[in-house]
């Protein structure tokens, strides 16, 4: 099943590289950029929220730090791509600090803690006009020589491909097993020597790096950012919803989720005008109610039912040895 998922995703992403060769409007390409951007963000979130099962609702923090990193470092004269790297570094550092504190908590308390950190960052960005420009905003340099939307689209596809390849590798590695063990039962993970705190932190650092990179790309496309655009709760929830809709803890779930959700959002916006958010909300509720494992998760478990069932439902006792038989007789007496 994992191999099939990887194959489908690889073919899909390869085909996606050629889409700009079709005569598409800039508007369409911008929507498609958003699809792949959120696929990459969802895949990054999936490492923490899916595999490791830690419901982070504050990924906007790393997104915003990446975006502001690009804007502010280049404002002081550093070249744009170097600023992107510094921004990603800053996102990783903030993830280390946020993770160190919030991973002390489990379950809903962890989720609340991540929301709080993201909100603090947003309010700081709003109230430091000398540094961030506050609500007036700050200019972001263009990352590509031609202000062509195609370049953004391709970088989105590449970022998604990178995030997907990384997820596939992690999923099969010891690190991936550790994350899944932490999700399933942290006490069990500890009992076999898993350093749960360290594994969760590593997952978050990797996730934050990709998210920060995504934030920088997004900011560069708009050329101008304000705190409410790159650090709001909406970004955090959208990242989480994309991954959960597609299937948290599955390899290609976030990619599928992003394609479905972002396309649906755009179509509804055109058809239903003002009512589109209502439809969007209903769609999410329906999926959560009827497909709690997400689209890919549900398909995988339905397919598993068709697999050949083994002869014995649980470890059927093997044939008793002579020694066992005699012991049993002795006990029955």
């Amino acid at each position, binding site marked *: 099943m994992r191999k099939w998922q990887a194959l489908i995703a690889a073919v899909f992403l390869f085909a996606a590289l050629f889409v700009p060769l079709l005569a598409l409007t800039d508007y369409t390409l911008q929507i498609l950029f958003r699809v792949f951007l959120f696929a990459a963000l969802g895949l990054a979130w999936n490492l923490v929220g899916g595999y490791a099962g830690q419901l982070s609702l504050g990924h906007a923090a790393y997104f915003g730090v990446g975006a502001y990193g690009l804007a502010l470092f280049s404002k002081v004269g550093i070249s744009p791509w170097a600023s992107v790297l510094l921004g990603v570094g800053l996102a990783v550092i903030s993830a280390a600090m946020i993770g160190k504190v919030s991973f002390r908590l489990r379950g809903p308390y962890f989720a609340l803690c991540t929301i709080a950190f993201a909100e603090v960052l947003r309010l700081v960005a709003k109230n430091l006009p000398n540094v961030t420009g506050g609500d007036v905003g700050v200019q972001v340099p263009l990352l590509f020589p031609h202000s062509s939307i195609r370049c953004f689209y391709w970088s989105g596809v590449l970022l998604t491909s990178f995030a997907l390849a990384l997820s596939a590798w992690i999923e099969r590695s010891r690190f991936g*097993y550790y994350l899944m*063990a932490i999700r*399933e039962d942290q006490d069990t993970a500890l*009992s*076999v*020597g898993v350093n749960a705190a360290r594994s969760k932190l590593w997952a978050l650092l990797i996730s934050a790096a990709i998210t920060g990179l995504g934030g920088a790309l997004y900011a560069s496309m708009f050329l101008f950012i304000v705190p409410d655009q790159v650090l709001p709760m909406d970004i955090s929830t959208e990242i989480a919803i994309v991954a959960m809709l597609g299937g948290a803890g599955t390899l290609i779930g976030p990619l599928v989720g992003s394609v479905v959700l972002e396309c649906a959002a755009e179509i509804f916006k055109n058809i239903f005008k003002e009512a589109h958010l209502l439809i969007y909300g209903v769609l999410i509720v329906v999926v959560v109610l009827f497909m709690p494992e997400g689209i890919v998760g549900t398909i995988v478990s339905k397919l598993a039912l068709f697999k050949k069932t083994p002869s014995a*439902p*649980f*470890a059927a006792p093997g044939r008793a040895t002579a020694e*066992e038989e005699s012991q049993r007789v002795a006990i029955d007496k």
Partner: protein
Amino acid sequence: MSLLEVKHVSKRFGGLKAINDVSFLVKPGEVTFIVGPNGAGKTTLFNLITSVFHADSGSIHFEGRDISHLTPNGAAQIGIGRTFQLVKPLRNLTVLENVMLGAFLRTSSPSKAEKEATKVLAFLQMENVAHLPARGMGLPTLKRLEIARALATQPKLILLDEVVAGMPTSEAIKLALLLKRLPEWGISTIGGIEHVMQVVMRIADRVIVLDHGVLIAEGAPQDVVHRPEVIEAYLGSKYKEIAL
């Protein structure tokens, strides 16, 4: 030299003295069983040895090293494996993957971990369920899975908490006979059991009896079960004289 040395350990939860000045030794290759009625402190003692809790006073030494202030994962790393009384499988992973998780403590290669896990599953006669998800398994299988996961970490000492509780006697005996072979692998065992005495008598080299957190008897199994204080702990003072 002793493998594990528990020295004057006490642990209190609020007003309850769960473990009160308990001391004992475990020699390498020995099968020790801690028996005692419900609430005697068996699980608390296991949680102290694996550093899930830390003792209020006293110390625990493993291979001569003080392990009183380790972390639970640190205890696993130095070679103390454990099972949980209330089974804690990784429900959405297969049985094999559950056991591989244990094997990953000693190797980072998935293929090596799979090999080690397969070996352990074969020993516990669970090969036929290796590729099924753990969530569909019955209690006897899950109890075995607990042992398999702990064995895959290649421990020097394994703590089995109520490993046969809730099983049919025939299953319990089969499992006990497998556990009897653990010293061949160089693994010492501490089992905790409430009342399945057939298993204890069959495989224990030594029995420790706990009652309300106090160690009340220690010795060879046949010896210990006839002591008046043990009978009193299980049956109450009223029946002590009848039983004797």
